């Protein structure tokens, strides 16, 4: 059996599909986040190495940080699809993703600051990870600012897509620069992943919460895409036939 994937690349067909998927993603999001947080708060050790209860912010912090980075990649992927195939829906997906990505970055920064206050005694520290996220936030904001500054939809889509691509090309270099400001010291950049040392219980809770955040992102992105579709296609006949507007 052949499924016609291109059918859903048309906003007209995607709109009702997204409408059906949104409740599903909301349910999954709430269930997974609740499960992940329950597991994290009640089924894991009270102390992680030298950190006490407050380390539990990790479940929100890590999940949002992962999503913030992942969503940037998703956004660029949509932007690229849009530039190559010139499909309207991909650009709409890219711009919807940007907002959720920005929200995730802000959550990651805020929880990072709270964690920093409890463990290092300071809200902000210019450590490479926090700094990288601050720059990620700037890049997201630049994308959104450019998009909203251009009135013509087609130009705004393409211009911001190109900016996202340029951002992606530069992000590794910026990351390197932030992590290794002194090339005399770190000839070999080697960041040890701390994941393997984490207790499996904590890891499971973290992964479940992340999955929940993921579902939340799906839900909000689809909701936003539906709004964008309505806004951009308001003059088409299929929108005027929608039962939402015909009561």
């Amino acid at each position, binding site marked *: 059996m052949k499924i016609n994937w291109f059918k859903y690349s048309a906003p007209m067909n995607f709109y009702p599909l997204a409408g059906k998927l949104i409740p599903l993603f909301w349910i999954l999001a709430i269930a997974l986040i609740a499960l992940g947080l329950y597991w994290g708060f009640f089924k894991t050790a009270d102390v992680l190495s030298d950190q006490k209860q407050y380390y539990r912010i990790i479940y929100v912090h890590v999940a949002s940080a992962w999503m913030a980075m992942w969503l940037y990649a998703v956004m660029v992927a949509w932007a690229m699809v849009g530039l190559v195939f010139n499909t309207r829906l991909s650009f709409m997906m890219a711009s919807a993703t940007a907002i959720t990505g920005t929200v995730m970055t802000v959550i990651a920064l805020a929880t990072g600051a709270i964690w920093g206050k409890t463990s290092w005694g300071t809200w902000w520290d210019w450590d490479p990870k926090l700094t990288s996220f601050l*720059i990620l936030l*700037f*890049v997201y*904001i*630049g994308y959104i*600012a*450019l998009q909203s*500054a*251009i009135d013509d939809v*087609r*130009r705004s889509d*393409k*211009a911001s897509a*190109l*900016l996202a*691509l*340029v*951002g992606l*090309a*530069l992000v590794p*270099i*910026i990351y*390197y*620069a*932030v992590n290794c*400001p*002194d*090339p*005399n010291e770190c*000839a070999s950049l080697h960041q040890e992943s701390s994941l393997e040392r984490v207790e499996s219980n904590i890891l499971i809770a973290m992964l479940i919460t992340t999955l929940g955040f993921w579902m939340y992102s799906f839900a909000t992105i689809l909701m936003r895409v539906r709004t964008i579709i309505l806004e951009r296609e308001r003059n088409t006949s299929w929108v005027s036939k929608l039962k939402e507007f015909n009561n």
Partner: protein
Amino acid sequence: MFSAFLLILKRDLLLAMRRRSEIFTVLFFFIVVISLFPLGISTEDQLLKQIAPGVVWVAALLASTLALDRLFSDDYEDGTLEQMTLTPVSLPIVVLAKMIAHWLLTGLPLVLISPLVGLFYHLPFESIKVMMLVLLLGTPVLSMLGAIAAALTLGLRGGGVLVSLLVLPLYIPVLVYGAGAISTSMVEGLSIQPYVLLLSAFMLLAIIFSPWATAAAIKISIE
């Protein structure tokens, strides 16, 4: 192709020569920003030496961002940019020529005036040399990265502020290694070679990729 490149380069320089005051505007902006920091922070010798590398680069970043506005907007407004995309010459070549002209007019003067910063901030002679070298390598990168953002924001209201928002985060690597090199040069026994190599690499990458990205951005903007 090379003759077309030279043609555009000469044209942009000729145009700038007819309006010389604009070159000096950027230059004086740079000098003014440089002289604000000692007044705002401290005129103490040691501290000035310490902040000089960061200050000179932040000032260079701001000056080159301000200058970006001039890169394409005049040609965009009078329709010349549109004509340029219709010439038989490929657009990235045109763009590269314009970038280089722009750097010669706004980047190179900063490099040449930078010894003045050395005097203001009591830098040793050795550091002044390093500062000129890294500015020479870094400012072209600023012009070329900035060109992409300048092309994307053509004709937009409040384009100048938007350009700064878009490019300043992208300038971070140049800032980090540019300033790092000057700081390192003030410490005995440390080599500045890695910094110089990294900045050179950035410049090469920028020369290769940014004309294409900028050309694509121009095509999007004039559509």
